[in-house]
């Protein structure tokens, strides 16, 4: 078994406070759902309902507005009781609709219909992706419609790549999803292959998960499409697009395959494609890992979108100690939440209640030039220098030192003994430089 891996930098992450990767548990339905109109990188969806309106489960309640924006659907049936606005951790204002659970479910508890996607054209599939509000099921939540358009416009053969690379322990929800829905994920990838007119499907799987790889190999065997399982290193940030591209190019070189465009999705997105196209159901729920040192019983929950983070934690037994911070995403690439009433969205991979001990201190000190950031940077940058340029707003100078190659994996920041927000400040420099 050949293992493909990026060469330098990166780190092995472990976290004992993640939920066990054994099974998912269906969470209670929320009596109140908060549905943000921004769950994607583009503009906010335009609300199609008003306060007081009755809505049904899966009803379109927000229409995506242009590139980068996606439709929003009601995760529960009920009545819109309020419009709310709040500020996200990155400073962006957002607004959402508060829905009170009322009436009957139209999909939950009902037999799911199966639509024959094999007869649909790529254009029809693309339309379905947009109608169902399908997005990449992790930050920043890029609409699938945009991803497919980019792939087909690339003028290269397209390969659909499902990244089942668990280099971050907080991807445990994706792992459980993969174990529980092998067939569905393969079918979702096949649908995407057809939509992108792709030539091949690759499941990239962490080297430690050979059992999962075997499951996918066996399940994919009957299909006539060209499907491969490729084992990759488990060192963070193997899952990042850049590091994944490196191993995919290694794989193509070894197999004498032509250089291709890689349409990379995660397993949750493949599952959402399956649900959206085969069962005609938009994204209403997702697998979320709820845990952290401050949570009593960390679990992988199947949560309805709009469930508040407070409710999600309550379903895991609440807190055992006072959390220092609560975050969504992962400890490497996530973001803090401002309060427990923030909701689960399409891109919420996990909810983490961190203790002070887990954070490891936030008091910053002067840079001591220890070189940990340079040693760990998978791109081979000099984060210390870039950080100092960023503080001085010397963005042009930073560009000379390849600051734009930084993909924000956060490795430098996590190993910095002076606790400097290297990655964060460098991202600001990149954005500021691009804006000039």
């Amino acid at each position, binding site marked *: 078994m050949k293992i493909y891996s990026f060469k330098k930098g990166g780190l092995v992450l472990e976290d004992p406070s993640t939920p066990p990767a054994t099974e998912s548990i269906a969470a209670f339905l929320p009596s109140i759902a908060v549905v943000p109109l921004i769950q994607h990188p583009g503009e906010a969806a335009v609300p199609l309902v008003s306060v007081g309106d009755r809505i049904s489960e899966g009803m379109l309640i927000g229409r995506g507005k242009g590139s980068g924006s996606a439709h929003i659907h009601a995760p529960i049936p009920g009545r819109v009781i309020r419009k709310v606005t709040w500020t996200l951790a990155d*400073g962006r204002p957002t607004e959402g609709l508060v829905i009170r659970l009322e009436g009957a479910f139209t999909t939950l508890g009902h037999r799911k219909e199966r639509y024959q996607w094999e007869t649909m054209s790529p254009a029809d599939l693309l339309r379905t992706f947009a109608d169902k509000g399908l997005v990449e099921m992790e930050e920043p939540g890029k609409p699938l419609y945009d991803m497919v358009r980019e792939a087909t416009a690339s003028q290269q053969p397209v390969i659909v790549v499902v990244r089942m690379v668990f280099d971050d322990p907080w991807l445990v929800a994706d792992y459980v999803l993969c174990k529980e829905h092998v067939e569905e994920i393969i079918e979702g990838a096949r649908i995407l292959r057809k939509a992108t007119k792709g030539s091949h499907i690759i499941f990239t799987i962490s080297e430690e998960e050979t059992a999962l790889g075997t499951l996918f190999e066996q399940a994919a065997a009957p299909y006539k499409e060209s499907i491969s399982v490729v084992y990759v290193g488990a060192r963070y940030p193997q899952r990042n697009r850049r590091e994944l591209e490196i191993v995919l*190019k290694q794989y193509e070189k070894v197999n004498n395959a032509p250089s291709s465009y890689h349409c990379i999705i995660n397993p949750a997105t493949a599952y959402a494609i399956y649900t959206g196209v085969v069962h005609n159901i938009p994204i209403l729920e997702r697998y979320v890992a709820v845990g952290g040192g401050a949570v009593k019983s960390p679990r992988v929950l199947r949560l309805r979108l709009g469930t508040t983070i407070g409710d999600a934690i309550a379903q895991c037994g609440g807190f055992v100690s006072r959390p220092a911070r609560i975050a969504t995403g992962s400890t*490497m690439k996530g973001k803090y939440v401002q309060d427990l009433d923030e909701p689960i969205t399409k891109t919420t991979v996990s909810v983490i209640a961190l203790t002070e001990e887990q954070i490891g201190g936030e008091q910053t000190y*002067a*840079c001591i*030039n220890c070189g*940990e950031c340079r040693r760990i940077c998978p791109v081979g*940058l000099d984060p210390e220098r870039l950080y100092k340029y960023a503080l001085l707003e010397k963005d042009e100078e930073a560009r000379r030192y390849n600051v734009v190659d930084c993909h924000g994996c956060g490795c430098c920041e*996590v190993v910095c*003994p002076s606790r400097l927000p290297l990655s964060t400040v460098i991202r600001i420099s990149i954005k500021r430089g691009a804006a000039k």
Partner: protein
Amino acid sequence: MNVSHIHVARKPLIHITLPTYSRMWLVSIAALGGIVQSAFTDGGYSFLLALVAVATALVVELLVGTVHAKYTSMGDGSSIATALILTLMMPHTIHPAVLVLGVLFALLVVKQSFGGLGANWFNPALGGWLFSYLSWPHLFRDALIQSHLVKIQEGIGKGILDPGGSPLAVLKYMGFTTSSLDEGIVSFLNQTLFSRFDAELPRGYIDLLFYTGPGIIADRGALGLLLGTMLLLAFSVVRFLVPLVYLAVYLVLVRLYGALPFGGSFGGGDMLFALLSGGTILAAFIILSEPVTGTKSLMGALFVAFILGILSFVFTYPGGILFGPLYAMVVGVVFIPWVREMETILLYKKARRIP
């Protein structure tokens, strides 16, 4: 974090390495190991010197904090580490006032005048040591006049040479006798361990490990300092390869050519003597591994360690400087900015593409 219209959230949310202050405290503990050992045999004077140095460092930080809070490094422990490292470089009988002035120079001139921790281009402890030594050379000379290193130089000056090329033999000719502790331990080791390999450990090395005569505190606390460095290695404060390369280069050169000044022949140099004297352990594990005035990359650090290993030998043996390794560090630090610039050009500036 919000800079005008740019939206970026702080991440990541955890930190997995020892924080700066913990590293500084570990360095301080390692330094204390040597100081405490030295204090056992000088009635606690070495410890008193360390206390004076630390107190001076705290007062400096308080003053700096009062005048300009931004530049104080009271919380990170770096000033205390500097004070203790400087103490290690001082003769154990030096007047405390010399140490106070050395600490003041190290912290106010070398460190704070360049912007505090992380901004200084020269190692503050080395700066303080140079300042003290060049300002009051007679005090250093008086304090070290009876030390084993000075006695060896005197012996060579008088034409006392050993065909085996051993500095310990020269010391013996100069009237130094081995202690009963050395006799006992060396006899035991020879009977139980070295006899199995048809080898014999000469007398005198245990005395070097527990050196009680006049000298710099680092040499008088060699064992304590060695134990302290293990702590630094265990917590990855020091990259193991860097002191290893330095010591390997230095000691191999000593082995090859180190016997010549003492009347010996090629290949008969005394590596253990070189390791346990002249501040070698301090230079290898603490000064060379100091990050602020270090290189950017491991490759650069290994290159510098290699060069400084050669310089340490050149200064100590052909040069006859008592503390050659420490002088080598001074010279090395001066060239580090140039090495860093080269590293930037070679390692970090060129455009990178996915292969």
